[in-house]
């Protein structure tokens, strides 16, 4: 029963991964974006700052705008290549949604690992004292980021102006998530414990579940022309 739903989802994911590895469009855009934003931050405030609120905020600014540059590709490329129609004929909408969602989750997690590695390498003041809290924050933050970006990307893929619209639509949706993860990143730098942030974890998990449920309900209307 689960296999009949999961197999086509994984097929969509595999198709997206293959075409991504062929063109490397989203990946190179993301990597270049991460490198350029981090270098601007290094030039602007220097690597030595040790203020945890500044460093935590800047890290998520890098992550937010990098994902804005690459995550809309999944749906926009289908429209640009004219393959959206074929996909509509082959599989039900929810399969497309979850396939694309998984692809974006993988992309965001990969991107965030790279961003954090580069960030801690260039910003000497950035030291995480509780790695457990930090990695949980990063994983749940990536999940929420991918979930909201996927449905927003599905919406803007059908609009005329795709590029500048994506961050405009995504920011109000992502703002509560960003506020919480920035707070938790700051806490993990200052040596907070996981048990102190149970409420925040519940918040992030609830956010992800609500966004995915709403996406699943709405995607059918967005996807069908």
């Amino acid at each position: 029963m689960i296999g009949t739903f999961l197999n086509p989802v994984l097929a969509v994911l595999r198709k997206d991964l293959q075409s991504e590895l062929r063109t490397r469009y989203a990946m190179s855009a993301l990597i270049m974006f991460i490198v350029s934003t981090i270098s601007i931050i290094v030039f602007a405030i220097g690597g030595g700052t040790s203020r945890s609120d500044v460093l935590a905020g800047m890290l998520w600014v890098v992550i937010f705008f990098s994902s804005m540059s690459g995550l809309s590709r999944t749906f926009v490329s289908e429209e640009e290549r004219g393959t959206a129609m074929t996909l509509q004929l082959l599989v039900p909408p929810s399969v497309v949604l979850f396939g694309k969602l998984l692809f974006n989750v993988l992309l965001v997690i990969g991107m965030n690992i790279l961003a954090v590695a580069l960030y801690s390498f260039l910003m000497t003041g950035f030291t995480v004292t509780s790695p457990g809290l930090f990695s949980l924050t990063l994983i749940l933050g990536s999940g929420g980021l991918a979930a909201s970006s996927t449905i927003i990307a599905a919406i803007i893929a059908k609009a005329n102006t795709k590029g500048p619209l994506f961050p405009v639509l995504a920011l109000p949706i992502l703002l509560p998530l960003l506020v919480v993860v920035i707070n938790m990143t700051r806490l993990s730098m200052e040596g907070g414990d996981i048990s102190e942030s149970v409420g925040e974890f519940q918040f992030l998990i609830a956010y992800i579940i609500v966004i995915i449920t709403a996406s699943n309900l709405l995607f059918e209307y967005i996807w069908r022309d």
Partner: protein
Amino acid sequence: MIRLFLGIWLAIVTLLAFVLPMSANPSAWYHLPIIPGLEDKARILFFHVPTAWLSTVGFIASMVYGIRYLRKRDPEDDIKSASAAGVGFLFCILATVTGAIWAKFSWGTYWNWDPRQTSIFVLLLIYGAYFALRSAIDVEEKRATLSAAYAIIAAVVMPFFMFVMPRILASLHPQPVLNVQGKTEMNATMLVLLISSFAGFTGLASWMWNLEVRIQRIVMNSLSGLKGETRV
């Protein structure tokens, strides 16, 4: 007729809001109470609170008609949804501006990222994004579907924001009219005036909404007339 009535009603409410005297021990029926820390600045209550209320109502109405559109695919619902968002956006700007002016005199600065100010800022962002999305799509059905979907997603996320804000910052904003403790520092005169103001502004907003819906209906009919089809 309704326009005349609304004009007179709101004129009376505005006049009373400014001229009714405030006293520490309200004895006469026309006395407003002095709220400690607010004094004469409390008079903004009669304008600020109804506009803030209508900016939320406009958004919720827009979402409800968006859901109706997705269910029935009636272009009329999309017109109602977009017009409600338009009126709501106007009142959202009014609430932000009146709030900022009040903050200047109460807190000493126009903007200090109080949770209330942040919430209304997010509401402004959502309205802005909604209209940016609408202007980016030419085909009517597509525009209606996508903007309805966006309004629903934004509405679904709003409760998270309400949850997250008070945990980060303590608010200096005066207690809402309907606060948790159920107590209020208002007397009957103030309450009646506030309710009249609510009624007047809500009437004004629905009149504006109705006007906008009728204008958009004419625009839609004339456009479909150009394409050689007619709509009843």
